[in-house]
Structure formats: C-alpha cells, structure tokens
C-alpha cells in the first residue's frame, strides 16, 4: 500500500495534505471568499511540492557567486522557474475571482452561490 519513501517525503505529504484541504475548500465551501482562499492554498501547495522536488541536500541557491561554476554546488533551478511562472498565474486568477465576487455581490447582495442560483431560478432569468 504505502511506499517505502513515506518517512523521507514527509514534506511532500504535508504539501499534498494542504493541496487536498484547498481543493475541498474550493469544492465545498458556500462562501465565495473562502472558495478563493482555498484556490490560493491549493496553488501554493503545488508550488511547495515543486520547490521540494528541486531541493537537494547540502546545496545552495543557484546564484553563481564569484564565478565558481560547479554542477555539484547548486540545487536544481528548474522548479524555481516553474513556480515563479505559476505564482503570476495564481495572483492574476485571484484578482479575477475577487472582481467577479464584487460584481456578484453588487447584483445579489450575497456571497452564497446556492442561494444565488435559487433566486435565479425563481426570477426565471
């Protein structure tokens, strides 16, 4: 069932638990603001997972200081680049969702999607 690396990958396990928490927030909370926070938590957890994947024990950040270039001195730079790209995506998505929230509140004076759809069906439009 469980693989042999569970104790070694405790950090990934934590990040995956956080991912599941964010996923569940996004799926099951009624309140839009909490949904958005859950989305952010989910994304950050994935980025934590990636950053952990790039880490190598006993190596330093990939910034070449005074021109020493040894391949066995620096960690893997690829995940950092991917996470940098991902953070931009998640902040843009967050801003977009918040704008939608404001519009929705101005229209319906509530943040509860179920109630909104109930009223929509009653309005018939």
């Amino acid at each position, binding site marked *: 069932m469980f693989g042999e690396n569970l104790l070694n990958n405790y*950090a990934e396990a934590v990040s995956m638990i956080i991912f599941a*928490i964010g996923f569940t927030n996004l799926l099951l909370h009624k*309140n839009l603001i909490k949904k958005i926070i859950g989305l952010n*938590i989910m994304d*950050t957890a994935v980025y*934590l997972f990636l*950053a952990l994947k790039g*880490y190598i024990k006993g190596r330093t950040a990939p910034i070449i200081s005074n021109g020493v270039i040894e391949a066995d001195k620096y960690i893997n730079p690829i995940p950092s680049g991917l996470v940098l790209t991902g953070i931009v995506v998640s902040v843009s998505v967050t801003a977009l969702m*918040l704008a939608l929230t404001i519009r929705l509140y101005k229209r319906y004076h*509530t943040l509860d999607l179920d109630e909104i759809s109930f009223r929509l069906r009653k309005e018939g439009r």
Partner: protein
Amino acid sequence: MTIFQCILLFFLLVCAIAVSFSKNLLNSVLIFMSYSVIMSIVWMLLESPDLAITEAAVGAGITSVLFFVTLNRIHAIFKSAGKKKEDVKEEGNE
C-alpha cells in the same frame, strides 16, 4: 534546520485548516496572509530565494490588499456599511 522546517510545515497545516474553520471573513484573510509568510520562509529554507521574495511581495502583500479592498466593497469589515453588515456577517458565519 529540519526541526525548524517541521515546525513551519506544522504551522502551514494549522493555518490551512484554520482558514476554512474561522468564523469571520477578515480573520480567514489574515490567517491566509500569515500562511503566505510562513510559506515564503519555507522556500527560503529550501534554498530558493527568488520564490521567497516573490511570495512575500505577492502572497502576503498584493493578494491580501486585494482581499481587504474586496471585503470593503462587500461591506464585510466596517460598521459604516451599517444596514448590509448583518447579512454579510451571517454569511461569514456559516
């Protein structure tokens, strides 16, 4: 270093759970802010300072500011939005 990292990861878990159980929207946004700060420290420990500085500037800075101004617009913070305050509070409570 690993001990410190474990403590930070534990804090991350606590924050992530507390967000979804906190009664008030403002509190949950604040908890999320601290979550971002802890996350940036963890990335500092993981030897990727680019991520740390970006997360500190974005996650703890800009995103939280956007959350706060949104809460303002939906009258979830201040009394001055008197009449609309209650029902938003109520939605914060579920």
